């Protein structure tokens, strides 16, 4: 009874919001977003009056052929620094909450990993790592980037965890990688302040739109993010797959 009341209440609230949006003349209808009224039109044309052509335009305001990447790591790079910080602090928090016990051991799995699983997971490990690296490196050209790329690298580690119930990644190295990659992101930002005038300014040449070696600092930042995310999420997985050793 209580549940039914809650259901009717929340769905009613939803319908109310829907009607409010429907009656809102300024709110663009679904499928008919007017980009000319939005700041996005600037991101698509990269602030230039001439059309940007893939493989031809040299040194536009922002380099990546993937417009979403040019927003994420160039126009709104500060948000991404915050995003990296969120992941950093929650990984830190997870290790604080779960990893505080002095002696820790691997959580044993209910099944014994058999020969096939072991071999197959080794083979897959390389393929997943390669995909992760590819996605990270091509973040400014194709969909993807440091966040999914880094998570793919971490999921390759996850595969090793599942295939071998004694396996534990060496946390020390990950910690250093995490700290150094994060610091380098901020240092690159401060370098922009020193070399140019602005924090996180893209101080390297943008190159030709669509080239692998283009868009200045963006691929570098995405590689740092990939390394950082990969090591952080591996750390989180390790924390979730260990338990306090009980005598």
């Amino acid at each position: 009874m209580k549940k039914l009341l809650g259901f009717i209440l929340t769905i009613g609230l939803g319908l109310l919001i829907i009607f409010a949006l429907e009656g809102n003349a300024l709110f663009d209808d679904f499928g008919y977003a007017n980009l000319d009224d939005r700041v996005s039109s600037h991101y698509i044309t990269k602030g230039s009056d001439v059309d940007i052509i893939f493989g031809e335009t040299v040194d536009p305001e922002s380099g990546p052929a993937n417009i979403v990447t040019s927003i994420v790591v160039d126009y709104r790079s500060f948000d991404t620094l915050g995003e990296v910080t969120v992941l950093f602090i929650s990984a830190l928090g997870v290790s604080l909450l779960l990893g505080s016990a002095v002696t820790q051991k691997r959580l044993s799995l209910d099944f014994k990993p058999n020969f096939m699983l072991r071999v197959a997971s080794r083979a897959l490990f390389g393929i997943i790592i390669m995909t992760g690296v590819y996605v990270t490196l091509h973040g400014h050209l194709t969909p993807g980037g440091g966040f999914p790329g880094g998570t793919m690298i971490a999921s390759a580690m996850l595969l090793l965890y599942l295939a071998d119930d004694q396996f534990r990644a060496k946390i020390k190295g990950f910690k250093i990688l995490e700290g150094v990659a994060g610091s380098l992101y901020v240092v690159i930002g401060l370098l922009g302040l020193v070399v140019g005038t602005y924090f996180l300014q893209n101080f390297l040449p943008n190159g030709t739109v669509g080239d692998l070696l283009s868009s200045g600092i963006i691929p570098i930042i995405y590689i740092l993010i990939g390394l950082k995310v990969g090591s952080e999420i591996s750390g989180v997985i390790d924390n979730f797959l260990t338990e306090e050793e009980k005598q």
Partner: protein
Amino acid sequence: MTTIDYIMIVLSALLLVIAFLAVSEKKLIKSVIFLSAVSMLSVVAFVVMKAPDVALTEAVIGSGLVTALFVFTLLSIKKEEAK
């Protein structure tokens, strides 16, 4: 109505039904699997709405990693329960 509209209607219906199942299911592991299904369907929605970047990220992070973390939590709780 174009094809894309029909796809969206089916998708919306599926999303709502499975989401409701996820929040009202009593068994925890089933609830988590339904959540994973909702996440996978949202990936389809992102692809339909021409957002490949988001779809890739949601597939890897939202659907893959989050489900794994949920399952690990349930696994370790089950272990402790057995003790």
